[in-house]
């Protein structure tokens, strides 16, 4: 105020005109509010749904920021085999991605593959935890076993893996065709595990070459991850005819380098990944393939892309077809009789149950490959271990009913996927570590290691999670929580494919992978659900100018001025702010 401006005398000292002399900061409008915003980092659905328990949002965010090596290390904290899962995982992450509601899920699978390959080119330093005196035996070198061994090694344990086959990898090597998972890729990922000091003894079958008792006495803990190798039977007449064989055995042959003779017409029975692998492998051996499945395409358990690839490569599909008999001619299968099915009421899996119609038809076949599921051939490792036809029963940390005996992967009664196996292996490793450290944590403590109700995080367990989260809460961000308008449409980058005609001529890898630069761009499509990435939207949109940033980058809400309108929470692109009741 100008000094020459007269004012009234007395207590008011009012100037002659209504000229402001101060800002509105004197008015504490924060007293108006009945709710207040709180920054809560929540769980992205990809993280929650990842069976491995990878902090997908976390490493995508690091990629967005150009911190590629840190992203790789965060990925490797949870997943020893990213080049493998980047090729063969059924990626529930993508299926749950909130970006689907906008313009298509982030191609996490492709980004992970790029990261896995990048980790081969630019290996991460081997992490050595504080060495522990205890030693652990792992039986089986499939994904569960490798994961368990890898994590235990990183926790500081000496680990020996016993593998019956001549080479490590289990079902990855024996069950998955090379055109999906080239052997050198598998070898390099397995090398990462051994680089951590894990010893893999191949060609040693526990129970035969080494007695179980030797393991239990020589090691402080044992993890069983022997897989499921027995194909389920159809239980129909003619099943034992020559030319009718389990798909899994067929795949094992092919993956071992054999090229069995199939004849001209091959029928594959089943709708899962094994069925697709059989169909596509058979086509690569020159056969004309028909896939018979008793439900419909929508209900096929195989990975969507695998079905698409099989179709693209020329496999025919007959749906609602249930084999009831195999017919013989010349001492060998000649045809498969199917009963036409119809869809009835939903069954326990939630899928509509196929019901017989009584109508039959015939499909001619020189070879029939059955792939309707596998069971773990429980070899009665220990009579006191609980299990069923579905596999061993394990607790949340892979523990069996017998002390210090853990299990993971297809040998258990859990989901049988590569990713689930990797996740189970990690759980068993954490379980063993807790046990050997006599760590008495409760369920709440365990839940804090999870991404919502998803898998445990090894990074959290070891306290080496590089991602700082603001007041984390363990609920999953839903599409309703995402403010899609804050995002520009950016269509999903697709996977490249070899031309089908060429692909089917060899066992070369069908998918050459997304170029690194494209994958980096794809990573930036991540919405970072539930995690504040300091995008400033809250600060910019606050009508009360009540949000500021400290020098360190954290947001501070001036509660003296926040009116509790909720705009920051509504406008937050990723649901990282929640409104809470201000007064009781």
């Amino acid at each position, binding site marked *: 105020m100008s000094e*020459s401006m007269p004012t009234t005398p007395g207590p008011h000292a009012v100037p002659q005109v209504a000229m402001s002399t101060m800002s509105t900061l004197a008015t504490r409008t924060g007293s108006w509010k009945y709710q207040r915003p709180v920054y809560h980092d929540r769980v992205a659905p990809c993280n929650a749904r990842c069976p491995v328990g990878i902090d997908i949002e976390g490493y995508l965010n690091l990629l967005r920021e150009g911190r590629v090596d840190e992203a790789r290390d965060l990925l490797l904290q949870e997943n020893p085999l990213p080049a493998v899962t980047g090729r063969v995982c059924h990626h529930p992450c993508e299926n749950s991605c909130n970006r689907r509601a906008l313009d298509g899920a982030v191609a996490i699978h492709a980004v992970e593959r790029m990261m896995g390959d990048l980790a081969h080119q630019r290996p991460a330093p081997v992490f050595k935890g504080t060495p522990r005196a205890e030693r652990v035996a792992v039986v089986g070198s499939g994904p569960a076993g490798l994961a368990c061994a890898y994590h235990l090694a990183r926790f500081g344990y000496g680990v020996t893996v016993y593998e019956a086959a001549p080479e490590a990898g289990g079902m990855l090597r024996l069950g998955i065709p090379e055109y999906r998972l080239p052997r050198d890729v598998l070898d390099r990922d397995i090398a990462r595990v051994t680089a951590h000091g894990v010893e893999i003894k191949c060609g040693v079958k526990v129970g035969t070459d080494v007695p179980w008792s030797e393991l239990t006495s020589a090691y402080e803990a044992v993890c069983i991850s022997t897989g499921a190798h027995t194909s389920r039977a159809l239980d129909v007449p003619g099943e034992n005819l020559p030319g009718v064989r389990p798909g899994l055995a067929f795949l094992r042959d092919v993956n071992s380098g054999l090229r069995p003779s199939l004849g001209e017409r091959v029928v594959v029975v089943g709708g899962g990944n094994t069925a697709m692998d059989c169909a596509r492998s058979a086509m690569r051996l020159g056969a004309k393939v028909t896939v018979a499945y008793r439900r419909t395409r929508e209900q096929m358990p195989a990975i969507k892309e695998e079905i698409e690839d099989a179709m693209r490569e020329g496999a025919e599909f007959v749906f609602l077809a249930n084999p009831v008999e195999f017919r013989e001619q010349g001492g060998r299968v000649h045809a498969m009789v199917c009963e036409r099915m119809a869809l009835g009421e939903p069954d326990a899996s939630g899928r509509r149950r196929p019901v017989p119609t009584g109508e039959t038809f015939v499909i001619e076949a020189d070879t029939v490959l059955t792939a309707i599921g596998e069971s773990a051939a429980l070899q009665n490792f220990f009579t006191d271990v609980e299990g069923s036809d579905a596999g061993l029963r394990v607790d949340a940390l892979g523990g069996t009913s017998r002390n210090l005996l853990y299990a993971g992967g297809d040998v258990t009664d859990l989901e049988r996927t590569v990713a689930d196996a990797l996740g189970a292996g990690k759980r068993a490793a954490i379980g063993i570590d807790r046990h050997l450290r006599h760590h008495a944590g409760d369920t709440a403590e365990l839940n804090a290691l999870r991404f919502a109700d998803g898998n445990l995080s090894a990074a959290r367990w070891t306290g080496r999670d590089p991602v700082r989260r603001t007041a984390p809460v363990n609920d999953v961000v839903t599409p309703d929580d995402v403010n899609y308008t804050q995002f520009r449409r950016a269509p999903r980058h697709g996977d490249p494919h070899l031309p089908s005609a060429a692909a089917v001529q060899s066992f070369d890898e069908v998918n050459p992978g997304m170029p690194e630069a494209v994958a980096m761009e794809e990573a930036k499509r991540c919405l970072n659900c539930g995690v504040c990435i300091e995008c400033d939207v809250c600060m910019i949109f606050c009508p009360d100018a009540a949000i500021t940033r400290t020098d360190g980058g954290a947001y501070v809400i001036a509660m003296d001025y926040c009116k509790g309108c909720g705009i920051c929470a509504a406008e937050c692109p990723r649901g990282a702010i929640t409104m809470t009741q201000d007064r009781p």
Partner: protein
Amino acid sequence: MKKVMVGNHAVAWGVRLARVEVISAYPITPQTQVVEKLSEMCADGTLPARFIKVESEHSAMAAVIGASAAGVRAFTASSSHGLLYMHEMLHWAGGSRLPIVMVNVNRSVGAPWNIWTDQNDSLSQRDTGWVQLYCETNQEVVDTTIVAFKLAESLNVPVMLMLDGFYLSHTAEPVDVPDQELVDRFLPKRVATYKLDTEQPHAFGALVKPDAYMEMRWMQQEAFRQVPEALAGIEQDWARMFGRSYGAIESYRADDAELLLVTSGTVTSTARAVVDARRGNGEKIGLLKIKMFRPFPTALVRDALRGVPRVAVLDRNVSPGHGGIFAEELRSALYDLPDAERPELFGFVLGLGGRDITPAVIDEIIEQTRAGTVPSREDLWVGVNP
């Protein structure tokens, strides 16, 4: 330099000499020549002001308010309906304590339409927080325009200056145009007490609650209280430099008068002629001219009228339901004089809507006043044929 000019051009000359920086106005009879002349001056560069040619008087007043708030000397002019259209913004200028000067060419107010003079337009704006000065001659118009800026800027009050439509606005007579150099010395460039300034950002005119609004009004009243003294001082300076002055009121041949005519505006001149004639006959008749209506120069008129036996107030205006407005104000001003000193006051309403006021009309008023035939609380309408 003496020039023969109409009153409207005298206004323009006053504005030019005062080095007004921003003008905004809208044409209306009988003020139009002010707008035209100022446009001409701005166009030929003799007045380097910005002339904002707005779409209405409301905007004209708003524009000069904006300009004045931003620190420059600003001017507008209007008349009658134009002035009334400004009404809201007259209050805003007054309340904002902006030293705007405006000229109102007095014209009657419709309905019915009438373009001729009376004072109802400006008197109806008496409570808007503007000083009101009524001029008698074109010379007074030039001089008062300049004086008005000095007065306005010294107390942060807007000043409205009146001249009678046609009787001054369109009447050409010799005017001594003050020397620019002297005027510059008398009225230097405005230095605003407070203004819109991005270097010192303040908000003006925001919501003021009951706990302070009244203090601001009180300060406005205080400023108005200082106006008569301030005007006297400023006029002293003016007189020293230019040899002329007018005063808030002027007594003319009033010594020993038994009857005083009270006038404002151009009627004063004609009344002077009548007084001269009566004095020539030895009659003790004089004149009191009231130039300043707001603030009402209560102390000055009490002194001027104290002890005068009979006073005739000539009102070229009327407040329907009451009477002549100057007469009302005078009755109020004289009310608490001792009975012996309080004049007998007679009010006359005349000259509305431009009806001519001739010496004969004034003679009749004198006769009626002498005869005491006018009811003391009711003003007589002169020359009305009911």
